[in-house]
């Protein structure tokens, strides 16, 4: 079957799984809500533009200017308990959607990095993005002077992530060429160095230690609609760019010289893939902290099922990553005391991956 048909088929299937995961997850919590009620709340929230109308807006008392406004209408009006509506729309849905977008971004970036480095151990943080984000966030939490330009915690983490990734790239690049092995080693070294910085800052974090540890273990608890909106606007665009390079990523698996012979501008493509993956990861890590294993294990699991063709693998892994993080975060918040989602992803993901590894006899990329 054609790669595009397979990609569309898997995407539809996995999008449906994601839809079910979101619905089920929104019903789980201290107040249990029947999935049907959740569906009603979600449908009530749907509004479609039905037309444009001109409303007269006045500036002062003198000028009357007609301004266009889009008319929205909600096609559904089920009667649901308003408490349920508040719980789903205000409390649970932002967090669930953020989990979905973050999981999507991490799995997509992880898939690209594993193909890019031709290394099964590669994950989104391999070029120092996560360490950079963590260093930025911890510095923000611990060092009071690190608050220039009115940047929030997310801003500090995002900038730290990009600085680290750019540093690794700059160190590994010589004469316009970036050998992959050098990049890998530079990434490991920078991660180790930033690890030292983070540990040092933690020692001096005093009362902030709890907050620091919480951030470092990955969390989605403070999610608000602002975070969701920002990531929902950036992640799909970046993902689209990666998807456009899926075929080049396949060809790059053959090695750089072969890829050049097959029409791929190797250095330019590598630069672009690195930059987009780094920003994608940074956007995710900035809002959620360091959530491990999603970007490492989900691409492997999906590759075992759909095969190595990135045109199919990339969208499938991204959607599977979204469902995976939605479900693990549901577990993280379902218990009596909430635990950081990073613990759940690692605790569940690693054994499941080991099971796949043993049962499918697959040991390579």
């Amino acid at each position, binding site marked *: 079957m054609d790669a595009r048909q397979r990609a569309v088929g898997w995407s539809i299937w996995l999008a449906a799984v994601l839809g079910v995961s979101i619905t089920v997850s929104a019903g789980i919590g201290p107040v249990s809500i029947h999935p049907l009620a959740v569906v009603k709340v979600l449908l009530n929230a749907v509004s479609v533009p039905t037309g444009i109308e001109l409303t007269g807006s006045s500036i002062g008392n003198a000028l009357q200017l007609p301004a266009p406004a889009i008319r929205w209408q909600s096609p559904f009006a089920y009667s649901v308990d308003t408490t349920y509506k508040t719980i789903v729309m205000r409390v649970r849905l932002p967090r669930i959607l953020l989990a979905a977008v973050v999981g999507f971004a991490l799995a997509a970036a992880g898939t690209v990095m594993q193909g890019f480095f*031709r290394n099964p151990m590669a994950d989104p943080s391999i070029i120092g993005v996560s360490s950079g984000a963590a260093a930025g966030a911890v510095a923000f939490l611990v060092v009071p002077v690190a608050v220039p330009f009115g940047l929030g915690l997310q801003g500090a983490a995002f900038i730290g992530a990009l600085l680290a990734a750019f540093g690794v790239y700059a160190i590994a690049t010589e004469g316009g060429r970036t050998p992959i092995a050098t990049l890998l080693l530079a990434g490991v070294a920078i991660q180790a160095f930033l690890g030292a910085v983070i540990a040092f800052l933690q020692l001096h974090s005093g009362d902030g230690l709890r907050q620091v540890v919480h951030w470092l273990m990955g969390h989605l608890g403070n999610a608000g609609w602002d975070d969701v909106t920002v990531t929902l606007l950036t992640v799909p665009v970046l993902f689209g760019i990666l998807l456009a390079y899926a075929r080049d990523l396949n*060809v790059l698996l053959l*090695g750089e010289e072969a890829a050049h012979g097959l*029409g791929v501008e*190797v250095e330019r493509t590598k630069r672009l893939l690195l930059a987009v993956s780094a920003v994608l990861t940074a956007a995710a890590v900035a809002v959620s902290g360091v959530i491990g294993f999603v970007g490492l294990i989900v691409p492997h699991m999906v590759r075992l099922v759909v*095969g190595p063709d990135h045109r199919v693998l990339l969208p499938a892994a991204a959607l599977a990553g979204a469902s995976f993080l939605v479900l693990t975060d549901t577990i993280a918040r379902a218990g009596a005391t909430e635990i950081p989602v990073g613990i759940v992803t690692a605790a569940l993901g690693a054994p499941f991956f080991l099971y796949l590894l043993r049962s499918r006899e697959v040991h*390579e990329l």
Partner: protein
Amino acid sequence: MSEPVLAVDQLSVDLGGSGILSDVSFTADRGELVGLVGPNGAGKTTLLRAIRGSVGATQGRVAVEGNEVSALSARQTGRLVATVPQETRLSFSFSVEEAVAMGRNPHIGRFGTADEEDRQQVQEALADASLSAFADRPVTELSGGERQRVLLARAFAQDTPLLLLDEPTANLDINHAINTLDLVRSVVDEGRAAVAAIHDLNLAARYCDRLVLLTEGSVLEAGVPDSVLTTETLEAAFDARAVVSTDPTTDSPRVTALSDHESADEI
């Protein structure tokens, strides 16, 4: 049609400050299989890399169908030159058909997908390399000879006027080596040009129309196999005593290297 498919003109290549190739000139025409022979380290692989633009020329030029390779994008080069590498990373579980279809990459736009012509070229390449029955098999499950045919098919699917082969028979047993070169010979006879680095002089003599004998980065001798493979040139190039006779079966020159204590009369 006076212009050859490949024209290498006074090409010199330096890598890391030392000269690898100096003043190499030769051409390859449609329907012609040109063999690059010479001792290890003579610059055969570098010459192939320079022809496909992977390494830049210090001096001189390489033109494929009149286009100077150094001025072309990777995509444009990929439509003119296909390479069969000595070995490749085929250790990913792509199917044979997917691996061969990668040869169409230079022909498909960034946002495009394979069209009818792409699919047809892939099917023809699979058939030419006798791989149609293997189309759905993962490349990781193939034998060495079958993998070599996948690489050939990928290059065929690329549908280029010029084909480069780097030691295509180096890792193959004699049966697969002959099959591989027969296959190359047949696509060349259909109107492509090919340049192959081959270390087995007897195979080179048997399958190539012309040979270019490289030593220390320069052309020592070039021409039809009979004129290139002589006791004198072999002594100069390989520093080895050898006897050149005519193979009674294939009628092509046969090179027999002598050890130090053998004399030509004993052969």
